[in-house]
């Protein structure tokens, strides 16, 4: 093809940028990770050293819990909204997706407003049961923050899938005497499975890598990204931080690669 040269010229700025600011730095990160005091053993120490292992474990558990809660609530909301037309519906959808643009720090602040020392929940419980319930700075606050971050990211995918569900199938199952739980288990969930899978993987990856929310809530829970941050800034252990971030990057990348079937285009980080 005569226009091969033109293609190369068009692609050149992209190639230079990606080479200088993506490939080279990622290579450098890998080299740094292996060139600390421990060498490549740094990667092993993530599993052998208690601090790193616990953090990885807790973060994964938190991400799994977030994913599960997000999928359950979002699926029900998506089913409710799909196929129904009512006044204000587009407003409801807009409000559900509006927080997509919030960075993690802002989400953290939203949780402080709900569950902080001057928060809504505390004010309400003080008036009713007499104690100021503060949850923003605990693992509960972190979980709710991740949920806040996650729901807007998956609800559109699930709604699109629920819209495609043939209502006559549900109708048929109902007329055959199936109860709502049976319909959900045997008809709806199998049909939604691909969307649930990719939305779940996205939710998991987002929760694993979330930094801003944990940073704002300044909880005592050392989630994995916070460990990387402290390792780099306070301990000035660049090679350990590099090794930890490579592991984190591989986990989120693998989760998102699994999610590819649904091809969601929402940013994982914020």
């Amino acid at each position, binding site marked *: 093809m005569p226009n091969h040269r033109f293609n190369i010229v*068009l692609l050149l*700025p992209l190639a230079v940028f990606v080479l200088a600011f*993506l490939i080279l*730095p990622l290579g450098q*990160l890998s080299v740094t990770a292996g060139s600390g005091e421990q060498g490549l053993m740094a990667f092993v120490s993530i599993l052998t050293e208690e601090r790193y292992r616990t953090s990885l474990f807790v973060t994964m558990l938190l991400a799994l819990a977030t994913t599960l809660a997000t999928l359950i609530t979002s699926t029900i909301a998506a089913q409710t909204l799909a196929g129904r037309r009512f006044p204000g519906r587009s407003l409801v959808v807009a*409000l559900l997706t509006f927080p997509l643009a919030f960075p993690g720090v802002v989400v953290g602040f939203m949780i402080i407003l709900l569950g902080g020392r001057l928060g809504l929940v505390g004010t309400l419980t003080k008036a009713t049961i007499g104690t100021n319930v503060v949850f923003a700075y605990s693992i509960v606050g972190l979980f709710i923050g991740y949920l806040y971050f996650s729901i807007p990211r998956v609800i559109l995918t699930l709604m699109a899938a629920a819209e495609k569900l043939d209502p006559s199938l549900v109708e048929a199952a109902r007329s055959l005497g199936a109860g709502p739980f049976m319909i959900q288990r045997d008809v709806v969930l199998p049909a939604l499975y691909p969307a649930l899978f990719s939305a779940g993987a996205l939710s998991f990856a987002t929760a694993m890598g979330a930094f801003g929310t944990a940073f704002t809530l300044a909880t005592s829970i050392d989630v994995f990204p916070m460990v990387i941050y402290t390792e*780099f800034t306070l301990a000035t252990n660049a090679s350990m931080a590099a090794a930890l971030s490579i592991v*984190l990057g591989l986990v989120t990348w693998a989760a998102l690669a699994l999610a590819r079937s649904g091809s969601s285009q929402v*940013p994982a980080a914020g």
Partner: protein
Amino acid sequence: MTIRWTTLVGGCLTALIVAFLVTPAIMSIVAGLSVNYAKGLSSGLTLNWVIQVWALYSDTILRSILVALATLALTLLIGVPGAYALVRQGGRLAVLVEELITLPVAIPGLALALALIITYGGFGAFRGSSLFIVVGHVLFTLPFMVRAVMAVLGTIDWKTLDEGAASLGASSWRRFFDVILPNVRPGVMAGALTVVTLSIGEFNLTWMMHTPLTKTLPVGLADAYASMRLEIASAYTLTFFIMIVPLLIGMQMAADFTEKRPKP
């Protein structure tokens, strides 16, 4: 027809989710505008906090706008020709390049920022400038521009358009500027709005990459959340909302416009 209990439960839960997402945002708007948050709206409305935010943090707000615009300019310059070349090229190579540039969306910003700092930390002037942050933002937003343009190219018959113009004697560049660019405008528009919105809200990369002299809005927000009274933190958040809401509405309009375009 009677309403089924499942519908009722679903409706209630949906309303609860909306309330969960919207209530704190409204609280923050109210807190940013009321004289004393603890005393509630009855303490009166004021713009004092917003004015104080401007006095304390106007540099971060302006820097965020400039960084977002510079990021946009670079993603346009790099991403639009790149997307066209990838679609023209096709095949495995194009898929591979697309995968590669999408990597920064899949890797946590923290890891990317660390990689950039390790690589370019020694270049003092570059490391300390806002350009360093712009590079990080371009890295993170570029896939959105490239994909938006590629998506539109997938819906139009660019080959026929290009060949038609070529048969009339137009050069490659002329065809790119006069035929292809006007036709991919909706994609460029959607991509641009996404890029600016993401850049203004970017925290994970920026927090690691910033210096005391290159603070952006989200970095300032984290600062305010940690050390300022709730009213100022809220007024600052309100400023952020005011900046992103028009962008979000624009994004929605661009999406509607693309959907309504007739497909070949």
